């Protein structure tokens, strides 16, 4: 479809993101343990889990930003297209075609929308930027209208579009999305979900970290459930969506008094993974 879908590095073969036996520590605190995960080229994978489960840490390990939080990979490997990403600087990860949209959008508020998009293309050769820019503005026409406004003045939804657009400026082969619908109105969240579908249809693989499990499972082919730093469940998204465990804990269905998917994870306050009944009932009560 799109000529821009090609990988930034032209990596060999069809191997996508592969995370093997990953352990991450922040000083003495172990945040991830023995995590295995794969995002094949062209696929969408989702990572579910409560706050504190290690979702963001997982993305930091891939994007090379653990060092900003005094964290480090203590064992295991992260590779993309067969080449290792663990130990690489964030800028080097971007050059290999793996780009992250940070949690909380984090647009450069004092810069204009156009400058933000330009910043997104800083890691790649200039000639690719023009084509990427066209693609981004086609995806998000509102960014063209607001090109000369300060990014800090955009609405939350527009900032999320800008954050995604900015990441696409680097022409990524794999896009890492950290909670893209957090704090957005349902209509805007649905728009973002559509956009993710479109981006994927143009050939970019996506690793989506979401608390909105319903949305994530609808988008992804494969999903992983993280609990206190370990993958406790993984499989085709459809299977996970159908599993009692996931329905109860992350979709909020099947439990007494609730029959609708929840937008935000009720277990946010404590990320403990106990499977005991009392935990479940507590979750159910919170979602009601």
């Amino acid at each position, binding site marked *: 479809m799109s000529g821009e879908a090609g990988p930034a590095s032209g990596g060999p073969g069809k191997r996508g993101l592969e995370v093997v036996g990953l352990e991450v520590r922040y000083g003495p605190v172990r945040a991830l343990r023995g995590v295995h995960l794969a995002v094949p080229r062209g696929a969408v994978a989702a990572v579910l889990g409560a706050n504190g489960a290690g979702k963001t840490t997982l993305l930091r390990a891939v*994007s*090379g*930003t653990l060092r*900003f939080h005094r964290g480090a990979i203590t064992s295991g490997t992260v590779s993309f297209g067969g080449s290792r990403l663990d130990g690489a*600087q*964030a*800028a080097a990860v*971007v*050059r290999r075609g793996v*780009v*992250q949209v*940070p949690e909380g959008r*984090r647009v*450069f*508020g*004092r*810069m204009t929308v156009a*400058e933000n998009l*330009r*910043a*997104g293309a*800083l*890691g*790649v050769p*200039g000639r690719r930027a023009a084509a990427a820019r066209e693609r981004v503005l086609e995806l998000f026409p509102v960014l063209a209208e607001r090109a000369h406004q300060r990014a800090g003045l955009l609405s939350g939804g527009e900032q999320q579009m800008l954050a995604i657009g*900015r*990441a696409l*400026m*680097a022409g990524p082969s794999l896009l890492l999305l950290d909670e893209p619908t957090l704090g957005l109105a349902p209509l805007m969240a649905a728009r973002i979900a559509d956009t993710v579908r479109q981006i994927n249809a143009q050939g970019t693989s996506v690793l989506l970290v979401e608390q909105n499990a319903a949305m994530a499972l609808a988008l992804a082919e494969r999903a992983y459930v993280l609990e206190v730093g370990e993958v406790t469940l993984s499989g085709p998204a459809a299977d996970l969506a159908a599993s009692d465990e996931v329905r109860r804990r992350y979709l909020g269905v099947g439990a007494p008094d609730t029959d609708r998917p929840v937008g935000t994870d009720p277990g946010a306050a404590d990320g403990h993974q106990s499977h005991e009944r009392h935990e479940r009932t507590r979750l159910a009560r919170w979602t009601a």
Partner: protein
Amino acid sequence: MAVFLELLVNGISVGAVYALIALGFVVIFKATEVVNFTHASLLLAGGYVIARLHPLVGFWAALAAGIAAAALVGALVEFLILRRAHVGSRGVLAIVTIGVDILLTTELTRRIGTEVLALGDPWGDRVLRLGPITVAETRVVALAVAAALIVAFLLAFKFTGWGVAMRATAEDAETAALMGVRLGRVSLSAWAVAGALAAVAAMFLCVFPTPGLDRGTAAAAMKAFPAAILGGLDSTTGALAGGLIVGVTETLMSGYQSELAFLGRGIGDAAPFLVMIVILLLRPSGLFGTKEPARV
């Protein structure tokens, strides 16, 4: 009136030179959040190279060499010391820069000794008469060059990829890294640019009416520090305004020293710091500094 105008023009010219130095402070602070106390010795290094080389290769080549040397010293300080100093806080790094400054300044003043080194500039002690006022040619050139450099710098900051990377890093280093910005390069280039600007400033600080480069030149460089602070450490506009305020204040206070005799001698040297204190009392983040919201 003519005296006042003369002082004002001189003040603006000196202020523009201070602005060049302050701009260096600001660039380093924006790119790395480090308050760079090494600046005075970068300036001294640039001036020293110009002073030593001009008899051998002529003024212009010596100037180019001085600019390159100061940029190199700046880059080396960043690359060899700051990048490797894995200390948590920016405050500690600032103190590291004080240490580096003392080292460099000690070595350079040892080499300069008690001499006053001429820079061999082409302007000499010629003066320009503009109506009722008389201004040293060096001051006019300083004003023109400083203004041109500042405009070029601000344009680059606004429109080039380097400038965008610099501003993105200043605003949010982690996100800039996620966009593929190489933070090491940003920091290195900031130090090099600051060094180069300092060398140009050194040249103008040491030409007529100043007799030349001596061991006191580094102290003159420290006057740009209140300029950067009172303008707001993270604002390029602030550096410009701060430089001008400091330059004009200092020149006027020195010029009217006899009328201000009750304040004691040397009030011109102290005035920039007094102005800085007053402005900081009124506006704690400087005239143009951003009030940083607490980040968690």
